[in-house]
């Protein structure tokens, strides 16, 4: 795995890259960028690109970038700058929201779209709890189905530089404070997504409730839903094997 930075539309972006083959562009969730077990697994068969969203980590978010829609346009610029074609776009949580906002704007560079428990769309029956009111302990507990993994994740977070945690939360608030972690307009544009789409969701997700899959499934014509029993939100860590295997099969099917 190598780390690099690229400047796109005047904004510096850090990313990690590993593997060779068809391109998988992975967009991380609210917890911030990390090289999760899922990325390791995918890099065995694909060229995996995992950027750190503007404003996360040590990066700066430009003043003009005020919404997830702005971030989506930025990533479309990134794909153009890197001359990416036939991209398998994968997003988790916040990253899933960004991925959906990219795909409603332009699927020209995409071969497929995989949304892992994406934020961005809320239903009256399945509203999000307030992520900004959670302590680190509660955030950890809610992400994982397995309490041991939650503790382990929390231990790792405590070792990180406190600046990075604060920076991540600030960037998340910029994009997702109001409306809380969703865009009420997004459901009206989901029908524009015309590439094969895979929705994967933990049935016990305590961050983005499982019930939020309904509008995605209904509005995206070529969407298929995989519900994972006994699973929480942190799919790229907790269900890396299963998710990786399913993604691989999905990418193969979506090639043509």
């Amino acid at each position: 795995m190598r780390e690099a930075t690229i400047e796109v539309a005047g904004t510096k972006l850090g990313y990690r890259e590993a593997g060779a083959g068809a391109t998988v562009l992975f967009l991380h969730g609210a917890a911030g960028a990390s090289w999760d077990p899922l990325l390791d697994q995918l890099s065995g068969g694909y060229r995996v690109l995992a950027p750190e969203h503007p404003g996360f980590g040590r990066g700066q978010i430009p003043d003009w970038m005020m919404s997830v829609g702005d971030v989506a346009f930025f990533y479309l610029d990134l794909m153009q700058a890197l001359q990416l074609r036939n991209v398998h776009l994968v997003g988790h949580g916040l990253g899933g929201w960004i991925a959906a906002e990219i795909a409603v704007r332009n699927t020209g560079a995409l071969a497929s779209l995989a949304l892992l428990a994406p934020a961005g769309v809320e239903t009256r029956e399945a509203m999000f709890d307030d992520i900004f009111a959670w302590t680190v302990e509660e955030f950890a507990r809610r992400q994982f189905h397995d309490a041991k993994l939650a503790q382990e994740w929390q231990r790792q977070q405590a070792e990180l530089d406190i600046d990075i945690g604060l920076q991540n939360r600030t960037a998340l608030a910029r994009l997702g404070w109001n409306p809380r972690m969703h865009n009420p307009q997004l459901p009206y544009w989901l029908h524009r997504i015309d590439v094969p789409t895979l929705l994967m969701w933990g049935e016990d997700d305590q961050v983005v409730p499982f019930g939020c899959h309904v509008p995605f499934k209904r509005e995206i014509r070529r969407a298929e839903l995989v519900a994972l029993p006994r699973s929480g939100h942190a799919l790229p860590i907790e269900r890396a094997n299963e998710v990786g295997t399913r993604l691989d099969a999905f990418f193969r099917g979506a090639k043509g």
Partner: protein
Amino acid sequence: MKTFFFHLMPYADLDLSYTERHNSAWVTLPNSYFDRAVGQKLYARYIGELELADQLGFDGICVNEHHQTAYGLMPAPNLIAAALARSTKQAKIAILGRALPLVSNPVAVAEEFAMLDQMSGGRIITGFVRGIGTEYFASGVNPTYSHARYYEAHELILRAWTEVGPFRYHGRHYQFDYVNLWPRPLQQPHPPVWIPSQGSSETVEWCASAQRKYTYLQTFSPVKSAKKAFDLYRQVAEREGYESQPSQLGWAIPTYVAETDEIARRELKPHIEAFFNKFLHYPLEMRMPPGYSSIASTKSLIESKFAFRMMEMTAENLIELGMVVAGSAATVRERLAAYARDLGVGNLIAMLQIATLPAELTEKNLRLFAKDVMPYLREEGARTPRRVAEPATP
């Protein structure tokens, strides 16, 4: 020194055992704790206390804004100020302050203040704040735009007060094609502006700049931090080429006067402890929403347990830290006079009703303060050894 009576209008009947079931007196404490009939009684009582202060000769009476909390029942402080504009005669009415970033229409704030200025015969003092962290949960406003919205709204309000309209204002957060205030404020060039804060150096520097010379008000903090903020104000003034006056500084502090030191401490103890431990009670996540402060100041707040009041405060250590003044009239006036001299502060904002402090003790406090402390402080102010030069703007 001028003396002001500051009222938070707390929900004094709060069931203090709420902490066994809830972790905050702000935003998430269910309003089933609010008894409607008690509410009516408290508003009548509190407005009466502010009116009494006017009759007792206080230089001013102060209200402020907080949302969805037992800490203060004034989500719309201008409503209280409007009632006081009619029922009081001489005291200044200070609204400390409106939380600018929370509003979607700052022109409405300029309008309301202009109305109050007219209705009170030019007796209002306006205040601009950002609101504390919890207000961003209550209002939904994005805390990462808190500073930007504050500065934009402030600019827009000042222009609305002072420029001939209509004019156009197209900011990043606020856009208006017609700004044309009817009524204009009575006071010229505009009502005085006071800025309450807990000592952020950015705020102090902004207030002290020669183009503003806003009165800076240090709120509920140890005397050491107040001194630091006031010294910074004077340094900035000097750098900006003018000498700051005591009238440009204010200090807000809970104050309690009784017959003797012993009685004062005994009577105040449960109420001041309730104030700091129960009413000013919120989780860290709500106090510091992301982006509300810079990463550096958020970090220093997290690292200083004190700032989050994680420790249980006692009346004794609050008095020790200089966060409260309590005692006989002689003790209180000596202490406050000493602070006035040491801090060079010309406005004392005394909070004389505190959390659960009942009506009888509040009235006793007001009367003793007015009779045996206030006159002394007024003279003390006159003796403050500072050269006098009127600031160019309020």
